[in-house]
C-alpha cells in the first residue's frame, strides 16, 4: 500500500519550514511593487505584440481593414453633427461648432472606449490568464495601446475638420501632444481600475454604459461649456468643473481653436489635468497590482 501522503499531511507546519529551508517561494505570492513594475517592463514586447494582435484580429474580418480606423470617427462626428448641430440646435453662440463638437466627441470617445474595452480585459482573457504566466497588467495596458492607435486616427480626422472649418495653425497646437499624453496615462489608470473592479464585482459591467453616458453629459461634449455656468451654482458648478474629462476636452479645444470660451483659466486646467493623471494612473496601477494573484480565480 502506498500511503505516504497520509503520514505527511499530519506534519503541516514542518512542510512550511521545509519549504523555507530550501528557499522555495510560495505560489501566488504577491511581488513588491517595484519588482512587479520591473517584471511588467520586461514584458513590454508581449504587450506591444498583444495590442497589435488585437488590432489585426478585429480588423482582419473586414474588407476595408485599416480604413475603418479613419471612417469610424468620421461617421461618429457626422451623426452627432446631424443631431446636435442641425436637428437640435445646441450651438448657441459658439463660433465653430463643428470643430467644437468633434473635439469633444473624439476626446471623450478615447476615454470611453478604453473604459469599455478595459472592463473586459480580464474577464475576456481568462483562458490566457489560466494558461500562461505574465504580469496581468499587460492586458489592460495593451487595451489602452489599441485605443491610442484609434485615437491617433481620430486626431488626424479632427485636425482635418479644424482646418477645413477655417481655424489657423498656431504654436498652441503643440499643446495637443502633452494633453494627449496626460490623457493616455489617465486612461491607462482607469483601464487598470475597471478591469480589476469588474473581475471582482461582475454586476458593475451592467452599469458602465449608464455611468459613461452621465459622464458624457457632464463633460460638455454636445453643448457649450457655458451651459453649466448659466444653470449651476456653488458646489454643483465646482463639481462639474473639476470633472477630468471636461478638463481634457477643454485643453484640446484650447489648443486647436482660436475663439473658444473656457470654464476656467487655462493654467488652472493644466494643473488639474496633471493632478488627475497622477492620481488616477498611480491609484489604478496600485489597485490592480494588489489583485494580481487573484485574476485566475474566475
Amino acid at each position, binding site marked *: *500500500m*502506498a*500511503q*505516504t*501522503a497520509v503520514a*505527511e*499531511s499530519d506534519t*503541516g507546519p514542518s*512542510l*512550511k519550514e*521545509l*519549504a523555507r529551508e*530550501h*528557499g*522555495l*517561494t*510560495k*505560489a*501566488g505570492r504577491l511581488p513588491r511593487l517595484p519588482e512587479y513594475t520591473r517584471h511588467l517592463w*520586461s*514584458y513590454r*514586447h*508581449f504587450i506591444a*505584440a*498583444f495590442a497589435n*494582435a488585437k488590432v*489585426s*484580429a478585429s480588423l*482582419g*474580418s473586414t474588407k476595408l481593414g485599416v480604413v475603418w480606423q479613419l471612417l469610424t470617427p468620421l461617421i461618429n462626428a457626422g451623426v452627432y453633427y446631424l443631431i446636435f448641430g442641425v436637428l437640435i440646435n445646441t450651438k448657441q453662440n459658439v463660433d465653430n461648432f463643428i470643430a467644437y463638437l468633434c473635439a469633444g466627441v473624439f476626446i471623450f470617445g478615447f476615454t470611453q472606449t478604453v473604459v469599455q474595452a478595459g472592463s473586459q480585459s480580464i474577464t475576456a*482573457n481568462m*483562458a*490566457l*490568464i*489560466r*494558461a*500562461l*504566466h*505574465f504580469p496581468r497588467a499587460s492586458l489592460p495596458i495593451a487595451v489602452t495601446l489599441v485605443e491610442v492607435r484609434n485615437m491617433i486616427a481620430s486626431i488626424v480626422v479632427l485636425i482635418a475638420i479644424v482646418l477645413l472649418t477655417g481655424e489657423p495653425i498656431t504654436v498652441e497646437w503643440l499643446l495637443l501632444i502633452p494633453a494627449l499624453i496626460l490623457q493616455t496615462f489617465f486612461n491607462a489608470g482607469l483601464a487598470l481600475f475597471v478591469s480589476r473592479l469588474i473581475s471582482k464585482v*461582475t454586476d458593475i459591467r451592467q452599469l458602465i454604459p449608464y455611468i459613461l453616458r452621465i459622464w458624457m453629459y457632464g463633460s460638455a461634449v454636445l453643448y457649450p461649456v457655458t451651459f453649466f455656468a448659466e444653470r449651476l451654482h456653488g458646489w454643483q458648478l465646482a463639481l462639474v468643473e473639476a470633472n477630468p474629462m471636461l478638463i481634457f476636452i477643454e485643453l484640446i479645444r484650447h489648443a486647436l481653436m482660436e475663439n473658444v470660451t473656457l470654464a476656467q483659466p487655462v493654467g488652472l486646467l493644466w494643473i488639474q489635468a496633471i493632478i488627475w493623471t497622477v492620481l488616477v494612473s498611480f491609484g489604478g496601477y496600485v489597485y490592480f497590482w494588489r489583485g494580481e*494573484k*487573484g485574476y*485566475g*480565480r*474566475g
Partner: protein
Amino acid sequence: MADNEREPTVIADNAHVVYRIYGSAAAGSNTPLASFKRIVTGKKSAAVREVHAVKGVSFVAYKGEAIGLIGTNGSGKSTLLRAIAGLLPVERGGGIYAAGQPSLLGVNAALMNDLSGERNVELGCLAMGMSPAEVKAQTADIIEFSGINDRGDFSSLPMKTYSSGMSARLRFSIAAAKKHDVLLIDEALATGDAKFRKRSEQRVRDLRKEAGTVFLVSHSEQSIRDTCERSIWLESGVIRADGSTEDVLKEYETYVNK
C-alpha cells in the same frame, strides 16, 4: 526519509482550491425579492456557487523526479497543476511552494484563433517571457517541430482554419520551446497522431533532463509507466495514494474496475 539528501522542488501543504462561479444560481434564488432579501440580511449572494476542486492536498516532490498524476475525470488534476503553477490561488491556511517558476504545458493554453500560426508562436513565446531575439531565432524550429506545414503553408493562415489536432500540436510545440525548472504537463501528449506523440514524448524526456521535476497528467497508463517512477492518485480533490507508479496504478485499476 532521506530529506537531507534530496532537494525538494515542489511542496504542497494542505492546499485547497475553490472555484467561484457567478450568475449560475439555481432557479428561484435569483428573483428580485430574493436579491433584495440578501441585500437586507447581508447574506452572501446565492448567485455565487462554489466548487471545492482540491481538498487539502499535501506532498513533497524532489528534484529529478517525474510524477504521474492520475484520477478519474473531474478529480481535480488540472486544477492542482494550475495551483502549482500559481495560476489559481490557494485558499488561506495552506500553500504550495515551488522552486523557480513552474510552467504549465496544457492542451488549453489559449491562443488567438483569428491570427496566423506564426503570430501565435510569437505571442505565446513572448508571454512565456522570451526576448524578441529568442523568439525570432526559435520561430522556424517551433513551426517545424509542430509539423503544421507538412501539408502546405499553414503557418501563415489563421488558427481557426486548423484542425483541432493541428492547433494542439502547435500549442505543445510553443510551450515545449522553453527550458523549465518545474514542468507540469496536462494531457498534452494525448493530442496529435501517433507520429507526433512519439516526437513529443521524446521532447518531454529531454525537457525532464533539463527541468528539475516533471508532473504528468495522462490517461494513457503506458505513458505514465514509461515516464514516471512515482505517481499520485487524486480522487474528488483528495489524494488516495502516493507512491511508486506500479503500486498506485494497481490500486487505481481495482478502483476503476469495481
